[in-house]
């Protein structure tokens, strides 16, 4: 089932002489259980695409549909986008972005609490997620007491806490070495397969997108590989893919 549909999305920062076009007619789709990569160099507009999809920044034009909800169509269609995010989306970031004054378990509990899941049930879910991500034994530690890889696993556990339809990951491996980065990507594949969430992962590292179902390339705000059957999709880097 299609859970993300982005059509002709445009984002222009500023106006007049200072206007900068970050996205030009970008289109993208993702289905549940799919692993989608947005690949591009720094400043290409891939994070802008992600933030627009999450309802964080307002596009200049286009359409965004998440699941059955039309989020944007020339203007925001949903007022309480915070609520939409906590119910449908999970986030993973480059710098792990755990809340520094909460332990690993509390970080996951916080995400549950935001969804009004509290008490023994929340504790059980948090424990299960941390165990699932292999950091159950580190749950009482503060982020600063965890390694980069462990922090990212806790961040993934937190992103999974609300059983999201879509997980948006912004350079999730940038702060990790290759081995740990690939381990995280393997986790994404596992999550997509086992939890059924669509994972949209922004990265500049083509080595990390091996095994992804679809890879979109972004350059200067232009998504050069569309999602349609017009062969805009490309195989992962290193397998001879490119614009058809």
């Amino acid at each position, binding site marked *: 089932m299609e859970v993300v549909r982005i059509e002709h999305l445009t984002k222009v920062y500023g106006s007049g002489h200072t206007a900068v076009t970050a996205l030009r007619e970008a289109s993208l789709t993702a289905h549940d259980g799919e692993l989608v990569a947005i690949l591009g160099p720094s400043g290409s507009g891939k994070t802008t695409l992600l933030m627009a999809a999450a309802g964080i920044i307002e596009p200049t034009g286009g359409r965004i549909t998440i699941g059955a909800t039309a989020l944007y169509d020339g203007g925001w269609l949903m007022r309480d986008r915070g609520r939409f*995010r906590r119910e449908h989306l999970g986030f993973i970031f480059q*710098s792990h972005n755990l809340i*520094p004054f909460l332990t690993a378990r509390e970080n996951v509990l*916080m995400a549950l609490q*935001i969804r009004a899941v509290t008490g023994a049930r929340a504790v059980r879910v948090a424990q299960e997620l941390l165990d699932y991500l292999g950091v159950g034994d580190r749950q009482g530690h503060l982020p600063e007491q965890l390694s980069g890889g462990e922090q990212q696993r806790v961040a993934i556990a937190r992103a999974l806490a609300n059983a999201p339809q879509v997980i948006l990951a912004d350079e999730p491996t940038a702060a990790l070495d290759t081995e740990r980065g690939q381990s995280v990507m393997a986790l994404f594949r596992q999550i997509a397969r086992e939890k059924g969430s669509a994972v949209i992962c922004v990265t500049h590292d083509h080595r990390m997108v091996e095994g992804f179902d679809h890879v979109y390339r972004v350059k200067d705000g232009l998504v050069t590989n569309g999602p349609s059957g017009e062969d805009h999709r490309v195989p992962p880097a290193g397998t001879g893919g490119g614009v058809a």
Partner: protein
Amino acid sequence: MNLAVRDIRRHPGRFVLSCIGVGLMLTLVLSYGGIYNGFVQEALALINNTGADLWVVQRDTRGPFAEQSRMPEDVRYRIAIVPGVAEASPYLFYTIQREWQGRPLRIAVVGYDLHTGLGGPRRIVAGRGIAQGHYEMVADQKLRLPLGARLHLGQHDYTVVGQTRGLVGSGGDPVAFFTLADAQEIQFVKDNWAIRNQRERAQAAYTRALPTQPSLSARLARELADNPDVHTVNAILVRLAPGAQPQAVAREIGRWKYFSAYTTEQQSQLLLAGSVALARRQTSLFRMVLALTATVIIAQIIYTMTLEKLKPIALLKLMGAPTRTIVALVLQESLALGVVAYGVALLVGSLTYDKWPRLVLVGTADKLTLLAMVLGICVVASAMGIRRALQVEASAALSD
């Protein structure tokens, strides 16, 4: 899960230090209220101690405490026969400073009539009351004069035979009670050396003025230099007969040209409206400035703490945390700071107030008022932090 508690837990040392700093400031806010209460308590203690119903003083003056009032001692007999008066008793009050065993003593001297007992010490906490007409005194414990101590005043030594507790004059000086005659003597009687000296100076002047009348010069010099009539008092205390109306008796006495009569209530009001009112304005102003300063300091602390959390706040927003979660985080930290600082203020106050030089009287109402003030201050102080927190964009969580 309480985010504010978790955040505080991360930097407990800094939080505790902030609480101590704000707490000490709140101690001052509390203390200034207590100091004013102490002023009132001390000012009224002496009035209440007399047990008088009326105070008769020199016409158009405000009584023995608020200002100087002088009247002949024998007026007591004229007042005693006014209908409704059961007893009239002379009263003398003045302040002296002497040295005792190398330390200065400021004493509020009270002279009272031993026979009526009006104006004398009502509660002796150690020793006994004055039992003989001369050379005994009852001193307040604040003077730190032990029982049996002898103090040289005027031309005589006076022995401490009893002690009171918490009796001070309106200026805060501890009280010592004497018989009226002793108090008059201490105040007015000059010693022989002073008399001789003044006689010679006066005679020299008169001799120059009246060179042909040496005997007249000598007599005039003696009259000028010798001890004056000491039978002067500051007030006559009146105890009313049962059923007598204080206002009516005061009106009756007030008809005489030379005296004003006040009820004890009026006397208290006169005192409170005078120097104590000034102290109240002063302490209120200090309290206001300190409360404002505390608000600014708490606001600054909370704002700084909020600035340090902007990224986690952005993250919470990104995760879809409702606004109330963000507001609660900042507000609860502010309230926690205020409440802990309030506890520090209460603790410091209770441990130190008995060592302050003047009475600090803090009641439950003062404590509750301060608590309400602190909560209000914390809410106001957190406004800036909350505003800043709400301005943070969720997208800030994605930036490094």
